[in-house]
């Protein structure tokens, strides 16, 4: 059911409580919710305003790294296990103004630092299509709550594909607009030069409406873009005549699953039939192979600095100690999960004076070269596409992929280019392999969300895969 169906078929009260009931019903299987939110106060507020908001009465979920006044906000970490936010993030104010009704906060990899959702303090999130598989992360809770029909919209955050990859694994739309397009004020950070607010819907038209609600300059976020918010939904146009789409061949060469490749080639044939000019684009292989280590160095170094304020002294869970140093050490040891502590160690390693030139600054320079190569590719086309992952969602304990292979380094991680560059990037459903969803990713030029949505709509029409829901019995 899309936004318009919700508005036609449900009054806000019924919609909110049905969604809340369903979230509770699937929790035992999906483990996607950190906190339920009583929607009544919000529903009472809604009665006092005109029902013409773009998301009036739409039940929604927020990733639990979004500050929500008076509501537990953990960022998926034990150290914030008792943290009650004292203010609303800008996006919460915008969603409220549009008439949305929050029913739950969703699980994430701790502080968004992961791609599996296995590191959440509340435990793994399970894939509704196969409960023995992962949701993907870090916005796994939000992804599966949209995929399983609980809500038609959920907020995520995307630092290195954390919305676009779980969108692929769960058969939904995952959209990360241009860096700065949506304010990050009130989002608990991971890596500030890469963090984007992003979101899940079940169709491209709803993604366009959602962007209209969320976008816009915010003086409280110094990276916020001062650009007008366009009527993206009204302007949606799936006509491919005159459109040039580039296939990123490095990614295809790194995928070895014939079914995924066949699905992708089938889509390309349909896009050609619809009038698109298709060209092959080959980027510099060495640069693409360096995406993951570049990301790892920059993201972990920024995270190490960002999270140094989590000391258990002024907020968060405090553990006893004989002096201030010991209180901080004990609080952080108990408060951070194993994976996060590992990432902080790596980040710190890259920031050591003796490593700063060799690793941190080198990574920042390589980032520029990757972005320049991406922009060169995008200068020749309207959008670049490739399968969003090398395969379907892995089993929870699957570590079989060779971490130096091109499949791992490129096919599983190329979408990080969207974070390096800030370019708008969207994943939409491509098809199913053995009943499990696979997505296709599209990346377009900076600031050009309209073309991103237009091409995504054309893909959605070509596949016929909109409004996909996997009911969890």
């Amino acid at each position: 059911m899309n936004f318009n169906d919700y508005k036609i078929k449900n009054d806000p009260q019924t919609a909110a409580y049905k969604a809340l009931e369903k979230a509770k019903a699937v929790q035992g299987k999906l483990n996607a919710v950190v906190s339920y939110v009583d929607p009544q106060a919000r529903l009472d507020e809604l009665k006092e305003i005109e029902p013409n908001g773009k998301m009036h009465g739409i039940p929604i979920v927020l990733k639990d790294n979004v500050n929500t006044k008076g509501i537990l906000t953990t960022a998926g970490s034990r150290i914030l296990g008792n943290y009650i936010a004292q203010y609303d993030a800008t996006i919460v104010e915008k969603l409220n103004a549009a008439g949305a009704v929050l029913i739950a906060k969703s699980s994430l990899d701790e502080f968004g630092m992961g791609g599996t959702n296995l590191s959440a303090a509340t435990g793994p999130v399970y894939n509704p299509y196969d409960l023995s598989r992962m949701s993907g992360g870090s916005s796994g809770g939000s992804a599966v709550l949209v995929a399983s029909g609980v809500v038609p919209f959920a907020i995520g955050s995307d630092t290195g594909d954390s919305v676009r990859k779980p969108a692929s694994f769960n058969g939904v739309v995952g959209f990360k607009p241009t860096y700065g397009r949506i304010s990050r004020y009130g989002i608990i950070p991971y890596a500030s030069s890469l963090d984007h607010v992003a979101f899940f819907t079940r169709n491209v038209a709803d993604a366009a409406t959602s962007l209209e609600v969320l976008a816009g300059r915010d003086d409280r976020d110094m990276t916020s873009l001062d650009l007008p918010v366009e009527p993206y939904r009204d302007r949606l146009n799936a006509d491919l005549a005159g459109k040039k789409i580039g296939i990123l061949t490095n990614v295809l060469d790194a995928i070895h699953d014939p079914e995924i490749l066949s699905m992708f080639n089938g889509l390309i044939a349909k896009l050609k039939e619809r009038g698109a000019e298709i060209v092959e684009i080959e980027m510099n292989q060495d640069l693409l192979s360096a995406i993951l280590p570049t990301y790892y160095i920059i993201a972990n170094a920024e995270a190490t600095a960002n999270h140094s304020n989590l000391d258990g002294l002024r907020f968060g869970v405090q553990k006893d100690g004989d002096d201030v140093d010991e209180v901080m050490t004990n609080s952080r040891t108990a408060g951070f999960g194993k994976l996060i502590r590992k990432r902080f160690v790596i980040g710190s390693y890259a920031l050591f004076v003796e490593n700063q030139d060799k690793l941190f600054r080198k990574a920042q320079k390589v980032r520029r070269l990757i972005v320049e190569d991406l922009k060169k590719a995008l200068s020749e086309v309207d959008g670049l596409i490739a399968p969003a992952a090398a395969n379907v969602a892995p089993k929870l304990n699957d570590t079989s992929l060779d971490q130096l292979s091109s499949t791992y380094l490129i096919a599983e991680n190329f979408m990080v280019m969207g974070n390096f560059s800030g370019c708008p990037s969207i994943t939409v459903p491509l098809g199913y392999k053995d009943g499990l969803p696979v997505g296709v990713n599209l990346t377009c030029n900076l600031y050009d969300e309209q073309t991103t949505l237009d091409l995504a709509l054309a893909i959605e029409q070509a596949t016929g895969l909109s409004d996909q829901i996997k009911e969890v019995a």
Partner: protein
Amino acid sequence: MKQYEPEYFKTLAKQLRFSLSDTEAKDIADEFGILLDQMRLLDKIDTEGVLEMVYPIEAETSFMREDEIGHTFTVEEAMANAPRKAKDHFVTVKVVG
């Protein structure tokens, strides 16, 4: 202490104000080889004369504003999540004897 031995990572963790168990330190040491191999992929790339890229959009987005009170927190809000407090102060264990 040899670099990339478990003790090395324990020392790094201590500087970051947390501890690693023996098993955790050994796991990081074991995995670090792969990570170094991945990091070496950067060495293949000539970055001579290339400027660091710090933010994806390098246009100016910050500006000077009028010196007016905007969003503020009350003392109660600022201290609402303090584990220990007394009046308007955070309370910690003694810093000096």
